[in-house]
Structures are given as structure tokens and as C-alpha cells.
């Protein structure tokens, strides 16, 4: 009995999110529409309580629960905190947007909390089964969130695509896992790793299993050649959901990539390195070049995400602690930038108007210099221009890749980064050099304005002082992967 108690204390953050999500689902039934905001408050409280428990149960060592199916290490704690914080910011940004579109309902918050739970389980998964469970919980919540605006044909179409392709990806991942299980006789990450160390790593079934796992991961990340769903889903989903899909789940995807590839299949590093290299180079090239041709802001950001994933893979494929830490730094920076970017789109949207075309940004500097300045920082950060955090993100992954000897891939990546700068510059151009098309006031709640300002300024401040975040990532990776 005591044994279970210790386990339950380890998963206290997850338990909080789970019970509150169910409570919100129930409580929503008894709330009058005018009191709906209570649901919002409850959801925010949930996230903060979960974050509090994550911090209070934090130990700088690796701990396990549920017969080593669940791990509580610094990496998991840091990623969970980022996920919770990111979701809380997303809730602030999306409140008004959802209210104006009749989607401000209990199920939105319940579903998001379930997806958060899924991410937290993924992050802490130490068995392939746990990882898969978390992934499915996340994916199923996201599929339904995309379809939340159920009368909108585009959203439904996007949800359908997302579901079919996502299910396929999950299937592939599961198939790969079953092969690995068959070859190693275990689902536990650590046991797989030690089993692989002793066995013949050239076994074709093993490699095939690895291919399927990498393909499944690539799908979830949205890396080329498994990127097809990204632009359609980004464009079709309500902007608030796009913001969710594009931001925090990438942290969880990063976590399972670390768990499966870096921890579980460490002896096969040379094999997955090659696969990641191809995907990284292609993602950067196709993401950046296709983004140039887009006129829809959300679609453009979708392709930008693909290229960011390519850079992220540069860190992962280095196969060193340095590389993993830099990837983690990259993904944290990416989440911050994505939140700021989509936050700005949400702020410019109003009742009956979606600010999703590039032209909607025209002349923003004349309408609101402050908003334009925040977007300016975000765009230069995404382009990787110093002194923003986006530069250090690119810098760290590139130095890791260079250390691992991928000189020409790095040269290619920086050339592509210059190509990518073009479409970010175009947004700056629209905001600063063009005259506005609509002159309506930008109305956003004060809390959103404040958090969005903090978010965008953080991109600059962390660029001036990148040390803090770098150290957090380095320590988390170092303490969790030995």
C-alpha cells in the first residue's frame, strides 16, 4: 500500500490535471453561460497547481514509479513546467477569441487539459506503452479540438485529415515498437537499451522497427517527408487550436524522441543519425522554400514550423548530450516564438474577422506601433537574427551538429536560414512599409496585452541573457541522461 502511495505522490501533477479536467467537464453542465468564465479560472488554477506540484516534488535525481513505467527526472520536470506555462499563456491568448466565436465552452478547457495530461505522460514515459498511451491521449484530444468549430467545413476537413494521418502515424509508431519489443523482449526504455547493447545491432528487424519509430516520430513533429498534414491542419483549425498544436505538443514530441532514440535506442545511434540527417536537411529546405509562396499567415507559419523542426533535428542527430541540450533549448525557444506569433494573430482578429492573411498585417506600425514592435521581435527571432533568442537557438543546434562533423549539412542549413529570412522580412515589410488596409481599433483584454508583451519581450531579453535557459536545458539533459 505504501508502495502505491509513493507512486501516487510522484504523479501528483498528472493526477491534478486529470481530476480537474473531469471536474470541469462535469461542472460545466451546471454553469449558466454567463458564469462560463469560472471554467476558465478553474482551468488556469489547475495548471498552476500542477506546476506547483511539479516543482514541489522535484528532485535533482532520476526517480521511477509504477514498476519503472513512469520516470520523474529533471528533464521531465522542466518540460512539464514549460508545457504547463505554455498552456496557461495559450489560455490567456485564446479567451476572447473563443468567446467571440461561441466556442467558449467547458469541453474546450477539458479537452485541452486532457491533451496536457497526455503530454505530461509522454514526457514521463519510461516504457513504450506509457509513451504510446500519452501520445494517443494527446492526439485524440487534439483531433476533437480541431473539429471544435463543428459547423465550419474547413475545420471539419482539417480534423478529418489530421485524424486519418495521425492515426496512421500512431499505427506506424506502434508497429515499430512491437518489432523492437519482439527483438529485445522488453517495453522498458532502459531494458531495451541494455538488451540492444548485447545484441547484434545489424539485425534487419531491429532496423525496420527503428525506421517505423522514426517515421512515427517524424509524423508527430511534422518533419519532411511526413509533413503533409501540417499546412492543412494549421490553416483549417481555429487559430486558437492551431496555436496549441503548433506550440507545446512539440515539447512532448521532443521528450519521446529523447526517450525512444537517445535513451532506448542509444546503441543504434549511427542508424537513426542518418535518417534524422535526411529529414532535417529536407525539412529546412522544403519548409523554408515553400513558405515563401504562401499568402495565408497560418499556412506560412506551418511551413516555418517544418523548417524549425528541421533545425531541431540537427541537434538531435548530433547524438551527444550537447546536441540534446541544444535541441531542448531550440524547442523551448520555438514554443515561445510560436506563442507570440499566434498570439499576435489572435489579437488582430475580432468578431467575424480572422486576421489570417498576410495583408491583414499591412501598416500595423501605423495602427499600433507597440503591436508592430512585438511582432517585429517575434519575426526576427524566428528568422534567427540576433539579439533575439531565435539566433541562439539556431546557433546552439548548429554548433552541436558541427561538433558531430556535419559540416556541409550545417553550411546548407545556414544558407537556407537566409532563404527563410525572406518571408519573415516580408511580414516586417507589410507591417512597417505598407499603408494599412483596415483601420479598426485593436481590442484585446488587458491581461492578453500584458502577457503577449512579456512573451515577445522575453524573446529579446532571453536573447541578451541566453545563459539561464541554456543552463536549465543543459542541466536537465545532463542529469537525466547518463
Amino acid at each position, binding site marked *: 500500500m505504501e508502495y502505491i502511495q509513493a507512486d501516487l505522490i510522484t504523479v501528483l501533477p498528472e493526477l491534478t490535471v486529470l481530476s480537474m479536467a473531469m471536474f470541469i467537464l462535469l461542472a460545466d453542465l451546471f454553469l449558466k453561460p454567463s458564469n462560463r468564465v469560472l471554467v476558465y479560472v478553474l482551468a488556469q488554477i489547475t495548471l498552476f497547481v500542477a506546476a506547483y506540484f511539479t516543482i514541489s516534488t522535484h528532485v535533482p535525481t532520476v526517480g521511477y514509479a509504477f514498476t519503472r513505467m513512469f520516470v520523474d527526472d529533471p528533464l521531465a520536470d522542466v518540460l512539464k513546467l514549460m508545457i504547463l506555462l505554455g498552456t496557461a499563456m495559450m489560455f490567456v491568448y485564446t479567451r476572447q477569441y473563443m468567446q467571440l466565436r461561441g466556442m467558449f465552452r467547458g469541453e474546450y478547457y477539458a479537452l485541452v487539459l486532457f491533451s496536457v495530461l497526455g503530454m505530461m505522460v509522454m514526457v514521463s514515459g519510461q516504457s513504450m506503452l506509457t509513451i504510446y498511451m500519452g501520445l494517443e491521449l494527446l492526439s485524440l484530444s487534439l483531433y476533437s479540438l480541431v473539429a471544435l468549430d463543428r459547423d465550419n467545413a474547413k475545420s471539419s476537413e482539417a480534423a478529418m485529415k489530421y485524424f486519418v494521418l495521425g492515426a496512421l502515424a500512431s499505427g506506424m509508431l506502434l508497429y515499430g515498437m512491437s518489432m523492437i519489443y519482439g527483438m529485445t523482449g522488453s517495453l522498458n526504455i532502459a531494458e531495451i537499451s541494455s538488451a540492444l547493447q548485447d545484441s547484434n545491432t545489424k539485425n534487419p528487424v531491429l532496423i525496420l522497427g527503428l525506421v517505423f519509430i522514426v517515421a512515427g516520430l517524424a509524423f508527430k513533429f511534422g518533419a519532411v517527408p511526413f509533413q503533409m498534414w501540417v499546412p492543412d491542419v494549421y490553416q483549417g483549425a481555429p487559430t486558437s487550436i492551431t496555436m496549441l498544436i503548433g506550440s507545446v505538443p512539440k515539447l512532448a514530441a521532443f521528450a519521446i524522441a529523447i526517450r525512444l532514440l537517445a535513451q532506448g535506442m542509444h546503441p543504434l545511434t549511427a542508424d537513426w543519425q542518418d535518417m534524422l540527417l535526411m529529414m532535417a536537411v529536407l525539412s529546412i529546405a522544403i519548409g523554408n522554400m515553400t513558405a515563401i509562396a504562401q499568402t495565408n499567415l497560418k499556412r506560412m507559419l506551418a511551413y516555418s514550423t517544418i523548417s524549425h523542426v528541421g533545425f531541431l533535428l540537427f541537434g538531435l542527430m548530433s547524438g551527444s548530450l550537447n546536441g540534446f541540450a541544444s535541441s531542448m533549448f531550440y524547442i523551448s525557444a520555438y514554443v515561445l516564438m510560436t506563442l507570440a506569433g499566434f498570439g499576435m494573430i489572435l489579437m488582430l482578429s475580432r468578431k467575424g474577422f480572422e486576421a489570417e492573411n498576410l495583408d491583414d498585417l499591412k501598416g500595423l506600425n501605423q495602427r499600433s506601433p507597440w503591436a508592430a514592435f512585438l511582432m517585429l521581435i517575434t519575426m526576427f527571432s524566428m528568422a534567427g*537574427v540576433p539579439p533575439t533568442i531565435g539566433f541562439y537557438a539556431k546557433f546552439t543546434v*548548429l554548433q552541436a551538429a558541427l561538433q558531430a562533423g556535419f559540416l556541409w549539412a550545417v553550411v546548407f542549413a*545556414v544558407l537556407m536560414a537566409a532563404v527563410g*529570412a525572406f518571408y519573415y522580412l516580408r511580414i516586417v515589410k507589410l507591417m512597417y512599409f505598407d499603408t494599412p488596409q483596415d483601420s479598426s481599433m485593436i481590442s484585446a483584454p488587458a491581461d492578453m496585452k500584458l502577457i503577449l508583451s512579456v512573451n515577445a519581450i522575453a524573446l529579446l531579453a532571453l536573447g541578451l541573457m541566453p545563459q539561464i535557459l541554456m543552463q536549465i536545458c543543459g542541466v536537465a539533459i545532463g542529469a537525466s541522461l547518463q
Partner: protein
Amino acid sequence: MLHNHVLSVSIWLPILAGIVVLLLGSDKQAALTRWLALSGSLSAFFATLPLYTKYDFSQGAFQFQEIARWIPAFNVNYHLGVDGIAVPLILLTSFTTVIVVIAAWEVITKNIAQYMAAFLIMSGLMIGVFSALDSLLYYVFWEAMLIPMFLVIGIWGGENRVYATVKFFLYTLLGSLLMLVAFIYLYHQTGSFAILDYYKLPLPLDAQVLIFFAFFIAFAVKIPMWPVHTWLPDAHVEAPTGGSVVLAAIMLKLGGYSFLRFAMPIAPDAAHYLSGFMITLSLIAIVYIALVALVQKDMKKLIAYSSISHMGFVTLGFFIFSQLGLEGAIVQMISHGFISAAMFLCVGVLYERMHSRQIADYGGVVNTMPMFAAFAVLFAMANSGLPGTSGFVGEFMVILAAVKFNFWVAFLAATTLIFGAAYTLWMVKRVFYGDVANKHVAELKDLNHREFLILAILAFMVIGLGVYPKLITDFTHVSAAQWLSHMSVSKLPIAGL
């Protein structure tokens, strides 16, 4: 106490002033904004003066050093320091910013606060580039500087400004990204980003050549050298006067300075090995671009090409590896900073009145603007290298050094004295002399006090440096000698070790 932080103050004071202007200024309070900007730029200028008064001329080592940990994870330090090559350029930067602020006084009426702030922030960033002794710190300043310039050209520029500014940004960005790869490579070799560590690092020739080219692309774009110069005429033509001034007076020098600070001392053997190539490119810039300048119809474009041609002297001076040539190149950089700034301001004066930069729209301006014509002719003479002006000193020193190096190189370089005079004076003739061309010219008003003030200051500097170039060579003498002695030692790993 502040004297230990002269460089930090020089960098951050204008940036801070820029932020204050941005926060307090607005188009409604135009006067307040302008005075804030002026006091900001003036105090930033005075903040750099201790670099002159407290500089120890007898030492070649880096002075005013400051060091603090910045990103320990990568052993990156906030490390500043200047030698005799950097100090004159820093003074030029803070000086030019004051000029630009005054020149914009009543010319810029739209988004005044943003305009002034952009130049103040840019000034701090450029001083940062000149004083950084850590390569990542340098890189951050180098790239960050693009953002305000991008906005300046794009917001206040001419008709085709978007094309010009995007071209400017992408060209420079593309060039510098390869430099970043070189920095990371050197970091993995030495374990730090300190430039002084790079100087000591032995490297095989093939690595040196690759590194040299990575730097070369970044700096050649900035200088700009033929054939990657095409962004400059576009950027200059479309930029507002202030933008052109800063571009020509300082940004081009960043490229030249960076050759001296990075490409050549880090890869000295490659620099010697490729010196023929570099000299050829410099000569093409000097001769061919001068011919291109000759046929320009747009005044700003003509001056832009003349800048490229003059910068050819700078790179030529670097790559003949002699004390005289090197010092001449540095004098040329400073002198060109004043002359090109003055020339662009002159075009600005005309443009504000006539809204045309076409040479054909002018004629006989001397009849309506005699005072202005006097200044313009002086600067034109300086641009074509008239003895007694600063334009002569640098070119003469480089040519003299080139004669010792190779007669034909010197001969080709010296043709600039003819071509330079040809394109500049021919433009002066067509714009200023002859009969009054049209009724717009007839209605021109001569300089106001503000314009007179800035042109007079620049004229003073141009003649001052022409008569007394020792002001610069005092700084450069020891540093240049030390630089050359560093360059003369091979960094190739000794066989068998």
C-alpha cells in the same frame, strides 16, 4: 570609475538614448523628440572622447579592455577592447550619428521618434562591432545592426525602397551566416570565442583558405567588393539621406575593419596565399567601378559607385602587406567616412528642394546657391583626391606602397586619380555650372543655418585631416606595425609535430 567602462558606455548610452526617444518621442511632440535625440547623440559622442584623450599611443595592445562572463555554457565573454585601428572608427561613428541627427532635423516629419531611435541604436551597435573582442559578441552586434538599417531604408526610403532594403538585408545576412559557421568551427578548435585565442591557433592551409573564404564572403559583401557590390547602389539610392550617410561613412568600414580583425590575422597564410586574388578584385573595383560611376545619371548612384571604387583602395592597401599601405588604407577609410557623408548630405540638400536626384534635372545651381556650391565643389575635389584634402592622403599612401609592391598594380590604382576626377567633376559641372537649367533651379534657396553648420563641420574635418593626417596615423602607427608583424608569422602547423 567610468573610465574603466568607456567602451560599455559608448555602446549602451546611444542605445539607451534611442529607447528613451522611442518611448517619449512622437510626431506630435516633434521638437521634444528632436532635442532628445540630439542631446542623446551629443552625449554619446562625448562619451567616446575619452578614447582619444586617454589612449596610450605608444602601445599596440588592446586598451580599455572590459571582460565579463556572458554565456559560460559556450565560454562566451562580454569582452571589449580597442586598438589604434578601431578607435578612429569608433570616433567616426559617434560623430556621424550627431551629423545624421542634425541633418534629419526638419527633413523627417513622419515617425520622427522611430527614425532618430533607429540611428541612435544603430550607432551603439556599430561601436559594439568595432570594440568586441569576443567573436560571438561581435556577431550579435554585426547582425543586430541590420535590423534598424532595414527599417530606415524601408520606412523612409524612396520609391523602390522595399526591393532595395530586402536586397540589402538578405545579401548581408547570407554573407554573415557563413562567418558564423567559421566562428563555430574555430570555437570547436580552441574551446572559446575569444578573438585573441583565434590569433594563436595554428591551422593547416586548406582550413585557413576555407575560413578565409567564409569571412571573405561576409566582409566583401559589406565593403562591398566587386562582384558582390550590387546591393549598395540600390540601397544608397533608396535610403533617406541619413541612411546613405551611415551606410557609406560607417557600415562599409565595418567590412574593411573586419578584414583586419578576423579574416587576415586568423588565416594569415591564406591571406598571403590569396593576396593576388584580393588585389585583382580591388583593382577591378578601383578601375571598372570608376568607369561605371562615370555613366551614372543619378547623383546618389554615382556617389555609391564612387564609394565602391574608393573602398577598393582600402582592400588594396590591406593586401600589399606594408606599413604604408595599411596605414593609408585606414586613413582612406576615415577620410571616405567624412567625404562620402558630406557628398550624400549635399545630394540630400538638393533633393529636399527639388525632389530629384537626376543630374539632368539640374544645371547652374551655383547661380542660386553660391554658398552651397562652394561646399559641394570642395567635397567633390576631396572625393577626386585633391592634395590638401583628406581624400588625397589615403590614396597617395596606398599608391606609394603599391609602387614598391608592383609598378603595374600602382599604375592601375593611380588611374583613379583621373577617373575619380572625371566622374566627380563632370557631375559637378553638369549640376552646378552652366546656365540656370529650369525654373525650379531658379527658385532654389541657399543653405539654411542648420545645413551650413553640418557642411562646415565636415569641411573642417576634410581639410583638417588633409593637412594634418597625423591625427589618425598617431593611432594606427603602432597597431599597424604590430598587425604586420603578426601577419608575417606563419600559422601553419610545423611538419612532424
